[in-house]
């Protein structure tokens, strides 16, 4: 059993501070919307196609409204206007709307307004029910087939071609994978649209598109039935389209999403406001769809030193958790990220990694947690790197990680080969089988190095939380406290997509999701 190490009061205090830290951000969120949030609203209404040059219709529409300075009332409102103008299908609505000359966007009589909103709310309810129905299918199959015990072995495929991905995902599932992640093309998070249709060319990964999601989930449903074991699917809801990807994932029955309140800001240089606003709606959708999110604190210690910056991971986890809870996510949906990244050249790293993983487990007892393998200090010596990964496998099962991304012996070279995944899965299965239950066998001395390190790290994370509370999260980010990366509130990509809401801003989905 991990800990105690620290008191429940200390942990409660950390949560309190996280709440105070996120308060000002929530004002920002409440006051603003973004182009991608509004595009998501339209996607809910069933607008999924793409126009000339593959530009998604939702982009055409939202650009138009944005240009006309009308987005502040919410795309749902204009969608309603289009309906009132007789549009009989989402597509027609698009045509009508994109046809409207800016000036034509005059106000309606109050009664009209009322009726319009009613009608749109009706459609929204239907749309949400539609998504819930799909989710029910997913949950049904999951229950029917069951899953192997945690840690769920998570591997990535990244061919760039969705059909090759399917081939490799099936192979990985056959070799024992519990979760398949389709890594995105390296540039995608910088795109202010979600590409359309099945794709076969990507760099370092495959584009995340609704159709690609569908193709992969269908293949995994089939494979799951063959294996009589439900295989989960995940993708990435970071970047400039957090909410839209969350919608696509919900619609296509994905099980998880990498979704972090700050990753885009820090590691993709996406505008801070934009990210905070987008992440909220995206997480509301995850809450609805029973999607498990994976946060990205593990990334911090690929840029910052894992030994020195251990506390930044803990502090950020409390903040990420708070953002998630305030978006309606439940504990079981929090795949809070951390990793085994301390330089193996140091002494006692296994004790240090155990300490850190136990501390995370102690702070988030009911969350599945998402454990990441060593990456930064991986060597091109694949035999050493394999041994290094084995120790992470042991920490994962020891600290009951719900989700474990398996380390690859070729991490320092290339995205995994088919055989690399096989090797990792075979060894991880052995380690999990061999050591399962060790946490119940063993107690850690409260006065030892593991416990003292945990207390020390927790103490420093409290200091950092305190600073964030005092000076603000935005200031702390500006000082490079997270991942050694400094970002300014108005810097980065996508600020132009942030729009202040009008008093009569209308987004029935948000209303329903916040209500439920």
């Amino acid at each position, binding site marked *: 059993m991990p800990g105690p190490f620290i008191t429940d009061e200390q942990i409660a205090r950390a949560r309190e501070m996280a709440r105070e830290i996120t308060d000002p951000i929530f004002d920002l969120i409440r006051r603003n919307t973004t182009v991608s949030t509004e595009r998501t609203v339209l996607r809910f209404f069933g607008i999924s196609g793409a126009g000339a040059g593959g530009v998604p219709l939702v982009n055409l529409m939202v650009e138009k409204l944005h240009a006309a300075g009308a987005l502040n009332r919410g795309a749902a409102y204009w969608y309603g206007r289009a309906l009132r103008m007789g549009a009989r299908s989402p597509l027609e609505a698009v045509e009508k709307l994109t046809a409207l000359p800016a000036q034509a966007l005059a106000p309606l009589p109050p009664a009209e307004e009322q009726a319009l909103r009613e009608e749109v709310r009706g459609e929204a309810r239907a749309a949400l029910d539609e998504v819930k129905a799909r989710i029910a299918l997913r949950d049904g199959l999951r229950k029917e087939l069951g899953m192997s015990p945690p840690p769920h072995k998570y591997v990535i495929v990244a061919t760039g071609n969705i059909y090759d991905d399917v081939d490799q995902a099936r*192979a990985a599932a056959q070799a024992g994978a519990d979760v398949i992640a389709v890594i995105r093309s390296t540039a995608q998070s910088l795109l202010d649209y979600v590409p359309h249709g099945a794709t076969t060319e990507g760099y370092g990964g495959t584009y995340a598109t609704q159709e690609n999601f569908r193709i992969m989930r269908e293949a995994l449903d089939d494979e799951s039935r063959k294996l009589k074991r439900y295989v989960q699917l995940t993708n990435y809801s970071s970047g400039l389209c957090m909410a839209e990807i969350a919608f696509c994932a919900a619609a296509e029955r994905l099980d998880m999403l990498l979704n972090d309140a700050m990753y885009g800001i820090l590691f993709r240089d996406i505008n801070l406001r934009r990210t905070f606003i987008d992440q909220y709606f995206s997480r509301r959708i995850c809450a609805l769809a029973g999607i498990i999110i994976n946060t990205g604190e593990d990334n911090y210690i690929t840029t910052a030193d894992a030994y020195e910056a251990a506390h930044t991971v803990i502090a950020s986890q409390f903040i990420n958790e708070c953002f998630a809870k305030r978006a309606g996510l439940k504990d079981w949906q929090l795949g809070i990220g951390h990793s085994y990244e301390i330089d193996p050249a140091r002494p006692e790293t296994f004790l240090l990694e155990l300490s850190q993983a136990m501390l995370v487990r102690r702070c988030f007892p009911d969350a599945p947690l998402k454990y990441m393998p060593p990456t930064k200090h991986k060597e091109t010596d694949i035999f050493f790197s394999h041994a290094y990964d084995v120790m992470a496998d042991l920490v994962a099962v020891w600290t009951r990680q719900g989700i474990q991304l398996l380390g690859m012996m070729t991490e320092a070279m290339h995205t995994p080969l088919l055989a690399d995944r096989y090797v990792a899965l075979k060894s991880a299965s052995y380690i999990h089988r061999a050591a399962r239950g060790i946490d119940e066998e063993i107690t850690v001395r409260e006065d030892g190095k593991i416990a003292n390190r945990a207390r020390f790290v927790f103490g420093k994370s409290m200091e950092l939380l305190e600073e964030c509370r005092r000076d603000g999260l935005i200031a702390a980010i500006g000082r490079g406290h997270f991942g050694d990366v400094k970002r300014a509130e108005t810097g980065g990509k996508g600020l132009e997509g942030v729009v202040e809401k009008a008093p009569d801003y209308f987004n029935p989905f948000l209303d329903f999701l916040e209500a439920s």
Partner: protein
Amino acid sequence: MAQKPPKQLIRPYGDRRDDGVVQLSFTLPVPLSEKAKEAAAQFARKMGFTDVKVAAAERAADHYTFFIVYAHSPVSIDYAEIDVPEVVVKKLGFDDLNALIEQRIGRRLVVLGACTGSDTHTVGIDAILNMKGYAGDYGLERYPWFEAYNLGSQVPNEELIQKAMARGADAILVSQVVTQRDVHKDNSAHFIEAAKKLGAHGKALLLLGGPRVDHKLALELGFDAGFGSGTKPSDVANYIAHAVLKKMGKEPQSLHYEGEPA
């Protein structure tokens, strides 16, 4: 080299000199079976290996078999034939190098660097440019006789080049870490085109770096030099200083120095 050195034939050493033992692993897209094992053995033999032992045949998936093979290679290499430029000048440390620039060039060398294209890997370029440096070796920002700017990652090639031109940079540093589907080659080629279009080519020194980069590759792509895994900032600093001196005609092209990219 003056005259041909005596042959020095070497072969892989497994358990005894020249036994030629090599370990291989690979996957064939066929289900595990005796037939698959035979195919793996034939493959190894066709590659010229002898005494082929298919040690393991693992069911990696329904239609993929992962093989581990031990075999002997008849091939030997004449180690004496492989020549690497002999070092003439010793590699200069932080102070000596700054002194060299001060005395022989007499002005601060301007360098700009970034991780360009869609690549977000900053740790590598940071290691070279930032104060902190890498593995206890100071970064270029720390050198009084360098004027270094790190533009970060995901920087469009054009932007890096224009900013460099604006500052009359002596060297432009490009980092490429993601290499899948040779994206680094495409992006680097595009960088060189842009550099030519914008007139930076031939003017500033163009350096390429990254874990999968080596000098040869960089030259092929049209850069002046390439730096791979484990590069130290001081290697880069030494290269730039000597290259500038050579350009100025103050050092012979033939001068070779320690840590020189090769």
